[in-house]
C-alpha cells in the first residue's frame, strides 16, 4: 500500500513539473510565486492536521516567525543561505516547545485550538508594538505595525549580488514545493509517519504498544512548523517586507480554509486549495462589488456543510478506482460525537 502511494507521488511530481511550466502562460510570475508559497504553507498544516490529527489554529505563527527570522537574520548577515536555514530552525524549535507543552499536558482538540489561537494573537499584538527603536536585533529594527523592509532577499548561495527574483524566484519556490512534497511523502511512508497516522487514529493504543505518542506528536508538529517557516522565508523574499499581518487571525483562517476546501488527509488537496483560493482572492481583489473576506467566509461555511471531506478526497472517491486507497473514515478533523470538550 505504501508503494502505491509513492507511485502516486511520482505522478503528482510529474504533473507538478508540467504545471510549473504551463502556469506562467496564464498568469504573471509575481502572483504565481505567491500561490506556490501559499501551497507550501498549506502543505505544512495539511501534514500536521490531516495526518497527525493536530488541530492548529495558529499555523500563521510559524509562517510569521519564519518570515521575521529570515528578515532579521538577512538584514544582519547579508548572504541569504544562512538566514533561510535560521528561518526553518526558529519555527521548528518554537513549534517543538509549544507542541511539547501542549501534548505533555494531554491537551486535545478544542484546547489545542484555543492555545494555538492565543499564541497567534500574542505574536500579533506584540509585533504591532515593536515600532520603537528599542526593538532592534543587531542592525534590524522590527518596525512595529509598519513592518520591516530593507533586508537581503534570496540570492544564489555564495553570491549575495546574484539575486533570485521574478521568474527565477518562481521556479525556485516551485521546485522547493515539489521537493518538500516528496520529502513529506517519504516521511509518511516511513515508520515515523505511519506511527504518526496511528496516533491520529488511536493515541492510547499507540501508547499501549509502547510508543511515546507525546514526543512523536511534538516532532511532527515541529516539522510542520519548520515547513511553514520555510514558506514564511520565501514570502519574506518575495514581498521584500514583513509585517505583523503575517501573524493575524485572518492569515490563520486562510490557511485553515485552504486545507478544509482542498481536503484533509491528502497532501495535494491543501496545496491545490491554497493555489485555487489564493487565485480567487487575487481575482476578487480586482473588483470592489463583493468583499473578498465575505466570499472566503461563505466558502468555508459551505464546504464544512456540504463537502466536509474537502474537494480532492471527494473527487478521488467519485472516480471509483482510487477510492479504495482513499479511506473516507481516515479523514477526521477531530473527535466526533457529542464530545464534551472536557471529556
Amino acid at each position: 500500500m505504501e508503494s502505491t502511494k509513492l507511485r502516486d507521488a511520482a505522478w503528482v511530481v510529474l504533473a507538478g513539473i508540467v504545471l510549473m511550466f504551463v502556469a506562467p502562460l496564464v498568469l504573471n510570475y509575481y502572483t504565481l510565486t505567491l500561490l506556490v508559497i501559499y501551497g507550501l504553507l498549506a502543505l505544512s498544516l495539511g501534514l500536521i492536521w490531516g495526518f497527525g490529527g493536530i488541530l492548529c489554529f495558529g499555523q500563521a505563527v510559524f509562517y510569521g516567525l519564519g518570515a521575521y527570522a529570515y528578515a532579521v537574520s538577512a538584514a544582519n548577515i547579508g548572504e541569504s543561505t544562512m538566514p533561510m536555514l535560521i528561518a526553518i530552525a526558529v519555527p521548528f524549535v518554537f513549534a517543538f516547545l509549544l507542541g511539547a507543552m501542549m501534548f505533555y499536558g494531554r491537551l486535545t482538540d478544542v484546547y489545542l485550538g484555543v492555545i494555538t489561537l492565543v499564541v497567534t494573537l500574542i505574536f500579533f499584538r506584540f509585533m504591532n508594538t515593536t515600532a520603537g527603536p528599542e526593538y532592534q536585533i543587531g542592525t534590524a529594527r522590527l518596525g512595529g505595525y509598519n513592518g520591516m523592509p530593507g533586508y537581503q532577499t534570496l540570492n544564489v548561495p555564495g553570491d549575495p549580488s546574484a539575486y533570485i527574483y521574478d521568474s527565477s524566484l518562481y521556479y525556485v519556490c516551485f521546485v522547493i514545493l515539489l521537493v518538500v512534497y516528496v520529502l513529506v511523502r517519504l516521511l509518511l511512508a516511513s515508520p515515523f509517519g505511519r506511527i504518526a497516522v496511528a496516533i491520529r487514529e488511536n493515541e492510547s493504543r499507540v501508547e499501549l504498544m509502547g510508543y511515546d505518542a507525546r514526543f512523536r506528536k511534538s516532532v511532527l508538529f515541529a516539522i510542520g512548523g519548520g515547513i511553514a517557516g520555510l514558506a514564511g522565508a520565501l514570502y519574506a523574499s518575495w514581498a521584500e517586507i514583513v509585517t505583523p499581518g503575517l501573524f493575524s487571525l485572518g492569515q490563520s483562517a486562510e490557511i485553515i480554509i485552504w486545507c478544509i476546501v482542498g481536503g484533509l488527509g491528502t497532501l495535494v488537496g491543501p496545496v491545490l486549495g491554497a493555489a485555487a483560493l489564493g487565485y480567487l482572492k487575487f481575482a476578487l481583489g480586482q473588483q470592489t462589488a463583493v468583499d473578498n473576506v465575505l466570499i472566503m467566509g461563505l466558502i468555508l461555511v459551505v464546504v464544512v456543510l456540504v463537502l466536509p471531506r474537502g474537494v480532492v478526497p471527494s473527487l478521488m472517491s467519485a472516480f471509483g478506482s482510487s477510492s479504495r486507497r482513499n479511506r473516507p473514515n481516515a479523514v477526521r478533523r477531530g473527535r466526533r460525537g457529542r464530545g464534551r470538550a472536557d471529556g
Partner: protein
Amino acid sequence: MRFGAGGGAGGAPMADVVLETRGLTMRFGGVTAVDNVSFKLRRNELRCLIGPNGAGKTTFFRCLTGILKPTSGEVFIDDVETTGWDPQFVARLGIGIKTQVPSVMDGLSVRENIWLSAYRQAGTKEADRTTADVIERLGLGDIARATVGRLAHGERQRVELGIVIAARPWLVLLDEPAAGMTGEEVERMVAIIHEINRDAALIIVEHDMQFIRSIAAQITVFSQGAILMEGTVDAVMSDARVRDVYLGKRG
C-alpha cells in the same frame, strides 16, 4: 513459530514472581474501587480475574497497566516498581495490554495495525515477518488488507489480540477478550490464549464462566474491591461465598 519471550524489549523475566501488587488501593472521590489488594502472579501462569460488576477487577487491571494511577500501594513487574508509570513505559517492559473496548486504529488496515506493534522493538524486516506470522496464526489472512473500522466486532477483537502478540510480550493482560464474540470465535480465542500461554504469563479479566472453564485457569475472585478468594475453577465454583456474591446473583 512461537509468540512470546525471545526478542522482547524487556527480555524474559528473571524472577519467579513476575507481577506483584502490595496493598494496592484506588479511590474515586469517596468510593474505594480497589481496596488494599495484594496479588502475585508467577511465571507462565494463566490467571483469570472474576467478580460481579463493580467488584473492582477492571479498575485493578487499569492500575496494573498504568491507565489509572493507584491512590496508594505498589505494583512490581519483574521486580521493577512500576507504580504510577504511564502505559507506554509499562508496555515497554514487554507487557501486552488489551483493553475492554477494542482499541485499534480504525483508519488503518489490519496488516498496518499489527505491523506497527511488531515494529517497535524489531526492525522493518523482522516486523514484516512477525506480522505475517501473526496474521496467519489468527486467521486474519482474508481481511489483512481491510480497513479495521469496517470489520465486525469479533474481528476487531482478534485484530487487537494480534496487536498484543505481535509485540512478543512475556506478560499479557487481557480485559474481557471474549466479550461479544460468537461461539466459534470464542473457541478460536481459547486456542490462541493457550498458544500465548506457552511463553507468556496471562491475566484475563472475564465474566464468562464457560470461557474460563475452557481455558482451565487459576482464578482470583474480586468482591467489593478486595480479593475474596483464589483457587482453581472447581474450588471457586464450589465455594459458597463466591456463589453468594457472584454466581448466585447471576442465577
